[in-house]
């Protein structure tokens, strides 16, 4: 894992001092709320429905045990004992007091964490593959590049007042576990014929009111030019992105309205002018890469007798392995996902005690590393197969052993009207009701991989546009209503979900979801045809018929 040097530490410490001063000026009346708002937002501090809300970055989703313990400490000391892991590798606290936030940020700085640029019209927290460094299918670990981008984007003098927020995600495998095509810039690390690292750039993706899938703008940006090329993209956007209408201000609209070719030509022109100016010395790349050297895992037999025996004896463990455990690139090890989607808990929420437990497990069984996924779950990336059963036992005892990763009840869900100031409808209670309806794990496994994603308003924080089943809460004459969308994907086969038709009231939306699932089960071409594949084959019509025709 990366560790701050004195430069990084100073930057974060100085930021805390700066923010403390800003809070003081606000409290003393030297600043209006209007002036203060963008400043607090750039430190992750919102004002929500019930209270302030603090968003803390988990850059590219990597946490050490000590960092996780600090997150638990913040939850206990300054909040109400829990936190919410979001779809952008952040954690949100829902109850901090304004007057405490400088102290919270000072505590976080002690473990090299911060809320810098987790909101505001700037370059946001860089996200990545939660399996980075552990999965066999990557060309290299993407996280050094994420860290380089994190540093380059931190307090960027030119790009802190962009037309709108700017989100960058980086992956290094074909399989996309970070939804790069739904980011303002998505980067996939590739190698050229000579084995040199370079970057495939995707631009102009995003969700919100007008979802658009990113377009590929470059096949290969050489590594030394990564920051030059990113600077060129950002500069064109900052100069030309729309500022007349907040809903049209994202880069996706600029690229869409201008056309990729024209946008790309402007970027190329700027790129040619500035090539070589954003120096990224080879020695610096090597320095940052060294921090991400793979942990020294012993090469063990590919199968573990203890592990196989437990699977044989214990059906529940077998289920857990099936959904939550994935192969590691080093034989004899596994990537273990921890579901934050237990029954009756808001998706993504974890208590301070749970965070502490995960920290302990990371220390004992996962090389001190934890990952946070965009699907609002946690990951222990480097677990010995021999230990998986023990890990699972410990997780289970803390209500963290749910065997539902990728299944119907592993729902992505934004906070909705229970917390969010912008919401039109509640989302958490609907997610919980769906989880209850599909509580039978056997049934979930029989249904197979199915991603339900839900947002409480059109901003799409819950990724409903790219859910296999997407649910959007709307407000119709003061009543909560839920629109259903089908066939989206945020992965390498990205597609936007399509609306089924009229929305459903709260007491009918769960039935509607079940109808969709039952329809799929009736239509699928064998147990192996996933919901998404089936939908793509048969189209919307049979689902529409099942949902609306016998009404």
């Amino acid at each position, binding site marked *: 894992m990366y560790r701050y040097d004195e430069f990084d530490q100073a*930057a974060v410490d100085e930021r805390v001092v700066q923010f403390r001063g800003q809070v003081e000026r606000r409290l003393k009346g030297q600043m209006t709320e209007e002036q203060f708002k963008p400043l607090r937002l750039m430190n992750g501090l919102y004002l929500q429905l019930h209270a302030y809300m603090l968003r803390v970055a988990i850059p590219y989703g990597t946490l050490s045990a000590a960092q996780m313990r600090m997150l638990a400490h913040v939850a206990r000391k300054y909040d109400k004992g829990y936190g919410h892991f979001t779809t952008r590798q952040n954690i949100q606290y829902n109850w901090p007091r304004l007057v405490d936030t400088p102290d919270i940020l000072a505590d976080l700085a002690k473990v090299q964490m911060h809320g810098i640029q987790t909101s505001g019209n700037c370059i946001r927290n860089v996200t990545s593959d939660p399996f980075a460094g552990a999965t066999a299918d990557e060309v290299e670990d993407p996280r050094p590049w994420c860290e380089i981008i994190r540093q380059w984007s931190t307090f960027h003098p*030119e790009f802190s007042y962009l037309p709108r927020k700017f989100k960058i995600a980086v992956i290094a495998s074909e399989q996309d576990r970070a939804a790069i095509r739904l980011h303002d810039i998505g980067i996939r690390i590739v190698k050229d014929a000579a084995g040199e690292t370079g970057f495939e750039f995707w631009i102009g993706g995003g969700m919100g009111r007008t979802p658009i899938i990113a377009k590929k703008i470059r096949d290969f940006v050489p590594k030394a030019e990564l920051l030059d090329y990113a600077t060129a993209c950002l500069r064109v956007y900052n100069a030309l992105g729309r500022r007349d209408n907040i809903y049209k201000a994202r880069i996706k609209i600029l690229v869409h309205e201008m056309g990729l070719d024209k946008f790309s030509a402007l970027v190329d022109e700027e790129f040619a002018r*500035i090539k070589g100016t954003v120096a990224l010395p080879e020695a*610096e790349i090597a*320095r940052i890469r060294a921090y991400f050297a793979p942990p020294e895992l012993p090469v063990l037999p590919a199968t573990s007798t203890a592990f196989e025996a437990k699977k044989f004896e214990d059906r529940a463990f077998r289920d857990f392995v099936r959904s939550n455990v994935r192969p590691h690139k080093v034989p004899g090890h596994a990537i273990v996902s921890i579901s934050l989607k237990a029954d009756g808990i808001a998706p993504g929420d974890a208590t301070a005690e749970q965070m502490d437990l995960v920290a302990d497990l990371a220390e004992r069984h996962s090389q001190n590393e934890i990952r946070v996924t965009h699907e609002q779950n946690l990951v222990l990336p480097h677990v010995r197969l021999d230990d998986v059963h023990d890990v699972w036992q410990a997780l289970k005892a803390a209500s963290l052993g749910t065997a539902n990763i990728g299944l119907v009840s592993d729902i992505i869900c934004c906070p909705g009207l229970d917390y969010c100031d912008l919401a039109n409808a509640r989302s958490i209670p609907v997610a919980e009701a769906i989880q209850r309806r599909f509580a039978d794990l056997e049934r979930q496994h029989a249904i197979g991989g199915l991603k339900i994603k839900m947002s409480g308003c059109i901003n799409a924080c819950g990724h409903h546009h790219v859910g296999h089943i997407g649910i959007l809460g709307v407000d119709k004459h003061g009543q909560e209503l839920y629109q259903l969308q089908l066939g989206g994907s945020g992965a390498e086969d990205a597609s936007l979900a399509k609306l089924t038709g009229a929305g459903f009231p709260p007491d009918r939306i769960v039935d509607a979801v079940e109808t969709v699932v039952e329809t799929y089960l009736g239509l699928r071409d064998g147990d192996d045809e996933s919901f998404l594949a089936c939908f793509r084959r048969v189209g919307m019509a049979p689902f529409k018929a099942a949902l609306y025709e016998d009404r």
Partner: protein
Amino acid sequence: MKIVKEGAPVADTWTHVGDEAELPDGGAVIVSLARFKAERDALMGRNAPLGLRLASHEPPADVAEDLGRFEVVALEFPVFRDGRGYTHAVQLRQRFAYRGEVRALGDVLWDQIPHMLRCGVDTFEVADDFPLEAFEEARTVFSNHYQPDTTGRRTVFELRHG
């Protein structure tokens, strides 16, 4: 209004002249881009210092060839959220190697000053009660930076390697 340069108020020798107003005889004036375009020849030939005022949607590239004639380019920040001026300042300094004064005016906030300085703004036109403390803080708030900027200071990426 006061003019602040290097953290201290300085005398303003410039007059902003509206598009309809008559040009004073001699004397340093700042005119809008529209006026400059309409009266280019007369203004270029005028025997007095000339400054240009650019609205936030007017890139310096629009007057690239004539930039050498201006001693001041004043960038408007109509609302603090409008960040185009940062890019325009960088373009002035880097792409066009503009050496004259780059002045920020309009909705400039305390905490934006460090960024503006780094982008090449060297002069600020602010309200009379704008605290000078802000300019002091701007110089000390961050001891290093990760990105190259118009000040030419070495970045953290570079400093780490001697």
